[in-house]
């Protein structure tokens, strides 16, 4: 099947530092595509290059090709690209406003939707993010008062309301406790039925649990790729083996 996103010979540098070095990567539809690697390996930059958040900083230099649905990402407007490729950040970051307004934020930016339709969309998104039952009676509550795990699921609902094709998750569980982490991992498995998920993580156990396709990134290079997460131990380079060893311990 044709990949939904394809990266070819992608090189990204900031100043004199090369962050990504000749990355080739295919993202498969309705799957969890994991990019696994140690901190500082270029994982977050990879995601930010796909939805062109790197364009916000003129220091980034980018070469190579990223295509989305067969078209270069630079051929899309930034607004359309980011609507269709949603992103969840490492730390949950609700805007200082009620839950309802947080979830509706992107939709209000991009459309002239009626209030009653917006109510339906907010409910659907919160349901898809597994949060509706917990917050349905208190949508006017300030989102900052939610727990860390709830905030992150609300951020997922905020991305889902725009009906994206792809959801990119940048270490979405790294600031959460084990229970909240496990809920988000289960949610990822549910989400892949409707969406394509790109997960960036340094957590090998998480990759093994949720991943359909895994790529190992080390010093800005993809050093191994394969299906699932079980192949990880045998395919890694020596230096990566030491990283995997550290994480597994």
């Amino acid at each position: 099947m044709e990949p939904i996103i394809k990266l070819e010979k992608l090189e990204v540098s900031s100043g004199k530092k090369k962050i990504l070095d000749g990355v080739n990567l295919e993202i498969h539809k309705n799957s969890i595509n994991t990019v696994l690697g140690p901190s500082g390996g270029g994982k977050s930059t990879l995601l930010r290059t796909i939805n062109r958040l790197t364009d916000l900083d003129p220091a980034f230099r980018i070469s190579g090709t990223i295509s989305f649905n067969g078209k270069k990402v630079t051929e899309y407007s930034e607004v359309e690209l980011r609507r269709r490729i949603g992103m969840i950040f490492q730390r949950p970051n609700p805007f200082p406003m009620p839950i309802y307004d947080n979830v509706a934020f992107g939709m209000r930016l991009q459309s002239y939707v009626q209030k009653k339709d917006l109510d339906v969309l907010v409910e659907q998104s919160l349901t898809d993010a597994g949060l509706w039952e917990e917050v349905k009676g208190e949508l006017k509550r300030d989102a900052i008062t939610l727990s860390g795990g709830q905030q992150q699921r609300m951020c997922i609902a905020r991305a889902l309301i725009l009906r994206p094709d792809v959801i990119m998750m940048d270490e979405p569980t790294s600031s959460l406790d084990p229970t909240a982490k496990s809920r988000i991992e289960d949610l990822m498995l549910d989400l892949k039925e409707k969406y394509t998920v790109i997960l960036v993580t340094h957590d090998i156990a998480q990759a093994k649990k949720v991943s359909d396709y895994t790529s190992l990134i080390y010093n800005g290079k993809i050093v191994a790729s394969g299906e699932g997460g079980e192949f990880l131990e045998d395919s890694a380079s020596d230096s990566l083996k030491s990283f995997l060893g550290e994480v597994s311990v």
Partner: protein
Amino acid sequence: MTEGETVTVKWRKASIRSAKDTAVRIVGYIILFILFAVLAAIFYEIADGALSNITWQILTTSNTFEGTTGGGIYEAIAGTWMLVGTGLLFSVPPGILGSLYVVRAKSSKTLSSLVRLFTDILTSVPSIVIGLFGYLFMVYYLGWGFSLIAGGIALAIMMLPYIFRVAELSMKAIPVEQIHNAYALGADDFQVATRIYIPQALSGVLSGIMLAISIAAGETAQLLYTAGWNAGGLPSGFTNNNLGVGYLTYIVYNGLLQGSAIPNATNLAYIAAFVLIVTILVLVLLSKSMNRIVKKLSQIMRGTR
């Protein structure tokens, strides 16, 4: 350190720490007391000179600095706020737009540094120099005469750096993740400015504006050169306002100079100073209790209400 070697750690004594804490606290109280005493002394001196003579008539009649009474301070009160208002018109939009430009990651670093440098320089330019520039350029070269617009722009030059700096600091305090998140949700630059930066920095920006108003309302030097002085009615337009525009600090300045010739002039100076201080005090208190208004305004700007 070799294996088996022992190190003796000498712990800091709790009593010394607590003595230091007490010393810091006492110094803090002394500074607070001095600040309060200075403020109270100023307020007492002005109020003492003003309250025994202040009347509704003085506040509502024109100033003459002639005869025995010297008239009132009506034009000075209204003129001060007209000048400050004109100053706001020319300082708030560039102050906020400038701060939005420098906090934006996409902006040119060189241009941002230049903007910061120029505002820093503006902060340190003496007001009399701004006045002289205003006189030569606006009053004389552009032919605006002593006028509301010349005085207002002279005040704006002084207000701009305060508004810019406070707005910049308030915008920088917004977590960068929130900004990135808004972009990731498809916001464009304008939407990020109007729905994230300005609503969240609004409270800080308003404090900066209040500070700038307080400072501008108390300025004299640049207004002498640009607004001139007028007690023959309020300005009817922006330029060539007859002799100029009235303002409170002129009454304070000239009232004391005329003190020996016009018996009531010193009283007028006290009353003008009192009106100025009370108005600024009210403004400061207002800005402290503006949280609810700011919250409402923020919601309206974000389009969430």
